[in-house]
């Protein structure tokens, strides 16, 4: 009996040969390692080893809080400490990480590497804006502390740098005090994409958190219809001191066969969600789990896309492209028949200081694409439009973008590579993605 070679995949279930080296002692295992990976929640190949290597460090056992100041909310922790753990411990004590992404099953190290953003980007910026210090193991083997005031170049290259500047060992960040652990939210049914953009931009001025869900299959007058959700922390008076219950979770037990998701089933799902929100608007108290992390309620939800896996396409269309950019994007998408369960639209605020931070002022659109034979062509087509509109894609989601397309989207790339030239000229730290997109040696 021969043993099957172990494989490693991102959240999109597109595996490569590889395995995680797990240890509580990150300083020991990162020595000479090619890459570190946290919870593996990036969708594509950001956390996967380059083709010539088989092992990456897994940080999830290095999960200790190293310092917590209950007066100021300053947190320092090992890179594998998860946002889920933070929320479990501190949400009810009145603290939150406002730059929270759409899942809490992420490590602090991963949040730094992707400079994650969430429903509050227009208000709070990305995670990088809340960082105070990082400890890295850099390519020459030494351990370097950096922050906005110390080795700032290395620091800002690491924020959003996809783990390519060094192994993130420790993270220090500022968390925010919240008046209660509940969200007060208002949601609204929206008829088309233009109204959606207006609603997003309008509510950004008064609401710290907002997000829209779009039915990507609707066309014509109804194109871009969906549900718009916005929220703020509820006041203690609004909650009446109600304790926050622990969320129960379901799990998808196995990979669905690939025929389950087709145009008809997705259309039925999207229509059902749209009309489930029958009243035009709703308001009230929401559990932060359901507001910030609706998909976390179903563990392993990525299995619904089956063994062929899926990719997520997320781009930002800058304000400079005008209000019509989102409509042009959706028109192209629907004309190509890209069936997507989830299409999420968000308002993006000021560009982060990270050298490769994804968002810039504009509209962010994210959609899941089940992998089929023509996925590469679809991504290429969408990328060409995004380049023409002056936008860019999110590396943490990407598995298909071509190097020339990424270079055309992100004029900051040479500056980022210059920092890597200084700290890691041989590119001894690299990933499957950096080989594919940045041309690192295999």
């Amino acid at each position, binding site marked *: 009996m021969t043993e099957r070679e172990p494989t490693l995949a991102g959240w999109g279930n597109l595996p490569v040969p590889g395995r995680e*080296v*797990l*240890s*509580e*002692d990150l300083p020991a295992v990162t020595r000479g390692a090619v890459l570190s990976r946290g919870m593996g929640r990036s969708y594509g190949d950001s956390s996967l080893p380059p083709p010539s290597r088989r092992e990456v460090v897994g940080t999830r*056992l290095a999960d*200790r*809080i*190293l*310092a*917590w100041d*209950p007066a100021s909310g300053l947190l320092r922790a*090992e890179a594998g400490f998860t946002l889920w753990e933070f929320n479990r*411990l501190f949400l009810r004590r009145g603290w939150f990480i406002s730059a929270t992404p759409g899942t809490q099953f992420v490590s602090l190290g991963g949040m730094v590497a992707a400079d994650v953003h969430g429903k509050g980007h227009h208000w709070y910026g990305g995670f990088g804006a809340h960082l105070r210090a990082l400890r890295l193991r850099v390519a020459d083997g030494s351990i370097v502390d950096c922050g906005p005031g110390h080795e700032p170049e290395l620091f800002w290259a690491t924020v959003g740098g996809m783990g390519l500047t060094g192994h993130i060992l420790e993270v220090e960040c500022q968390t925010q005090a919240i008046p209660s652990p509940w969200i007060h939210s208002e949601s609204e049914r929206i008829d088309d994409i233009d109204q959606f953009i207006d609603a997003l931009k309008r509510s950004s001025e008064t609401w710290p958190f907002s997000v829209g869900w779009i039915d990507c299959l609707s066309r014509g007058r109804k194109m871009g219809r969906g549900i718009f959700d916005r929220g703020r922390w509820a006041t203690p008076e609004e909650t009446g001191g109600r304790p926050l219950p622990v969320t129960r979770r379901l799990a998808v037990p196995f990979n669905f066969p690939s025929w389950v998701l087709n145009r008809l089933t997705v259309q039925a799902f999207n229509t059902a969600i749209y009309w489930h929100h029958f009243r035009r608007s709703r308001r009230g108290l929401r559990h932060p789990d359901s507001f910030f992390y609706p998909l976390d309620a179903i563990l392993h939800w990525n299995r619904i896309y089956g063994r062929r896996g899926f990719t997520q396409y997320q781009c930002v269309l800058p304000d400079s492209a005008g209000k019509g950019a989102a409509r042009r994007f959706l028109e192209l998408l629907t004309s190509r028949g890209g069936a997507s369960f989830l299409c999420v639209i968000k308002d993006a605020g000021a560009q982060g200081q990270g050298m490769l931070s994804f968002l810039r002022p504009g509209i962010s659109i994210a959609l899941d694409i089940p992998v089929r034979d023509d996925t590469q062509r679809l991504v290429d087509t969408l990328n060409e439009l995004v380049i023409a509109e002056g936008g860019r894609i999110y590396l943490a989601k990407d598995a298909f973008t071509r190097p020339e397309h990424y270079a055309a989207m992100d004029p900051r790339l040479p500056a980022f590579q210059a920092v890597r030239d200084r700290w890691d000229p041989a590119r001894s730290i690299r990933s499957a993605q950096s080989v594919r997109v940045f041309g690192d040696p295999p």
Partner: protein
Amino acid sequence: MKVVFLGATRGMGRALARLLAERGDSLFLLGRDEEELVRSAADLQARGRGEAVRHAACDLGAPEGFAAALDAADAALAGFDAVVVTAGMFATQDQLEADVALAHRLLVVDFANTVVFCEHARKRLLARGGGTLCVFSSVAGDRGRKPVVLYGAAKAGLSHYLEGLDHKFRADGLRTVCVKPGFVRTGMTAGLKAPPFAGEPEGVARAVLAAIDRGTPELYTPGIWAHVMRVIRWLPRFVMRKIKF
């Protein structure tokens, strides 16, 4: 509860110490690496109710330091009522067969020294009318098996000792909890091929906490290992010689 904890920095010990801290128990950490103790103490303090978590050096390889370490814990906690030992050494059968010195060290640390540490702890607990002594042994000690001949021998001795303690001193108020984890995915077992029914440290920790509260003398965890080991113990020798398990 006021708990002295030897081995809280890693693996199942880390997970169990967190549960104790989060429900408000007082902790005093023992371990051999000062920096690791400082980091784990900070973690547990942040998770707890703000009470400082203190620590002292204690190396299972150096039994001459046991009494002083337990005295330091006793002073800091103003009298402890529980002692938890999750620390220990692990090496694969191949490594131990290849290196007799390593085998000797493991047998001394996992059996002789652990027992001596427990003797110090047991006397202090009994002197104040009892308390809980929770020690991590292993399913490896239940039967002589090919992959754990040496490690299993040390753990068999430890399990035996703990059973004896329970029989002799339960009536005096000493609650001995012998934990026998099956395969659990921790840093210690990372890189080994996980068998079916492999557990997670958090699940083990929850079961152990319940056993500590109830004073269960022997705990297999994950629970299915109680049944697996029952079968293993019944298997005749001619079968044990054939199988690899």
